[in-house]
């Protein structure tokens, strides 16, 4: 399926300027997001997945700064726009985000109506009635009744708050919604319901999702394509079938990560794990960044930095072992 590209990211670099030195949290990553797809981003904590998400909205957390690259939204580079232009055209208008622990980012002293209205009034000129209808429509869309508007966040359960936040991310009709760990704080049953909701929304509204999580099993559930990040770089990018299908992923890191995920309906006696810890991004290892933890490391991995190359259609890998030269 040749789909239209909504978002193209080229050589994006975001560094944190700390006292210890420059942390290269996002280091020259290139990928695209297609119309109506869900792109999953997985990796361990500290691999730069959330940082990448904030970079797409052009609002890095200090002391972070975007130092290079391009973010093309329908062909226009958002990194060249002024702050005003970004507010008017990009942030929440075209790209919105459901933040990690989003259900805790609702103000406890405002009703849901007031919080939702705030966003709406910033971006759209509409009458009170229009605004209210719109808010109700979107609440219904995420499976909540109208009377939620009058309630305060503490009167709602975790799952309901998460739905409110998703509704808020959707109601300006953005093209891309970034979901950062939207289900981690939720119980399994509620998590499954939220996942079902996101799938349903994707089918109904033709929006693209970027789904950030550390849990491969959730990615298998929601994402059309999966991007695996390690130490600020992409180590593998492929379709769900290429990563989770019978042939398995190509990159040793993804392979090990998958092997470390316990399966529910299988008797496993020994679970694999990846020895060591992710590298310090102030001073990442030379060559392939995964080499100190890799089980199939070669001489070349210690020496040469690995590029991300296509090994089959739609399947990109950064591993010297996978290239047939």
């Amino acid at each position, binding site marked *: 399926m040749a789909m239209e590209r909504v978002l193209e990211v080229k050589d994006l670099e975001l560094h944190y300027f700390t006292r210890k030195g420059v942390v290269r949290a996002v280091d020259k990553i290139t990928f695209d997001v297609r119309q109506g797809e869900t792109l999953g981003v997985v990796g361990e904590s500290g691999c730069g997945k959330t940082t990448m998400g904030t970079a797409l909205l052009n609002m890095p957390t200090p002391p972070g700064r975007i130092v290079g690259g391009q973010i093309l939204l329908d062909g226009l580079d958002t990194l060249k726009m002024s702050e005003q232009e970004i507010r008017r055209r990009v942030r929440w208008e075209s790209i919105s985000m459901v933040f990690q622990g989003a259900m805790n980012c609702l103000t406890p002293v405002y009703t849901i109506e007031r919080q939702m209205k705030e966003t709406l009034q910033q971006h759209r000129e509409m009458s009170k009635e229009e605004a209210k209808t719109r808010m109700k429509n979107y609440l219904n869309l995420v499976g909540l009744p109208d009377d939620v508007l009058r309630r305060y966040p503490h009167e709602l359960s975790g799952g309901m708050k998460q739905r409110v936040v998703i509704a808020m991310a959707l109601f300006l009709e953005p093209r891309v919604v970034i979901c950062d760990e939207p289900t981690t704080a939720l119980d399994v049953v509620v998590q499954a319901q939220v996942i079902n909701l996101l799938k*349903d929304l994707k089918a109904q509204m033709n929006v693209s999702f970027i789904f950030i999580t550390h849990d491969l099993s959730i990615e298998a559930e929601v994402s059309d394509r999966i991007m695996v990040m390690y130490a600020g770089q992409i180590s593998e990018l492929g379709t769900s079938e290429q990563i989770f299908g019978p042939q398995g992923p190509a990159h040793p890191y993804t392979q090990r990560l998958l092997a470390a995920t316990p*399966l*529910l309906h299988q008797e496993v006696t020994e*679970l694999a794990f990846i020895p060591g*810890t992710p590298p310090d991004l102030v001073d990442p290892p030379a060559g392939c960044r995964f080499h100190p933890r890799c089980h199939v490391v070669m001489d070349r991995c210690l020496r040469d930095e690995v590029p991300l190359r296509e090994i089959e259609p739609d399947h990109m890998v950064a591993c010297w072992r996978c290239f047939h030269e």
Partner: protein
Amino acid sequence: MSEPILVAENLTKWFPVKRLVSQVLRGERTWVRAVDGVSFSINKGEIFGLVGESGCGKTTTGKLIMKLLEITDGHLHLNGEDVTHVRGRALAKHRRSVQMIFQDPYSSMNPRFTIRDVLMEPLEIHKVGKDMKERNAWVSEILNEVKLSPPEEFLVRHPHMLSGGQRQRAATARTLMLNPSVIVADEPVSMIDLSTRAEILHMMRQLQRELGLTYIYITHDLSTARYFADRLAVMYLGKIIEMGPAGTVIDRCLHPYTQALIGAVCEPVSGKVNQIKDVPIKGEIPAATNIPPGCRFHPRCLYAVNECWENVEPKLVDIGGGHMVACRRHEEIERIGAAARTSEASLGLRRSTRIS
């Protein structure tokens, strides 16, 4: 292996809720029934998994076993002795034999302590070891045991200088300092990265085999519970609703709640992207102050019939092989499940519905 080390009989913990003046005058009392009559028996050298959603009372049960909370009703036996209302010296003795690993290893360690201080503290409190030399030797031995080696390097570090995995190892080391017989592990790996999660569980299991420990593994994660625990108990609103060998409970679960929990678990298998997951449950978990009459699960159950809320609560009954379930309709549910499995197998159908 078969002698029970820890036996809980009808263990109950009710927390009183603050009352309004009008309620006091009327003599009304409300309770949060966090743990509402839980019975189980854990054998020596066993890993007993306690699973359920947040608010189901699994952590409270752990704390009751630790005697961090006063037991409202019921009995707790450790090694054949009744420890339900122990105080003073006997309580100190109980705390030595039952230890706990907490969920967040960072907030459960004093940030100003070095790892040496953290591990030394229990020895000092319980006056274990003749002198400093003996204590130091013991600390180093335990650090080696949890694979934080060389110990000298870790002794002088503060908790923030350790990675998540190392911190949880240190927390495990702390529980081992007093040679306990039972360790209550409350979500020990939920804050740890997937890549190291298996490593910690692996280490915990090795220790269990070497030292003959008994674990109570409290978690909401069914996948690791199946991998790690020998036996599982599923809790809902303060009660155990299904219990049995881990594999049986997961693969042949009969309680509708367990079925919903299992249906909700995500697995890393391809081909599910465009399918809506079938989670056989309705509504949300009721408050523990207001537990539904009859079977406490009936408002959310898809199989509920009149007798489920008209009659008294179903008891846990053994249906063979140590598999226990508290559901009036478990036989019918088993038949439906068996029929579904065969039709699924013959037609190659999935229960999920396609959407796009």
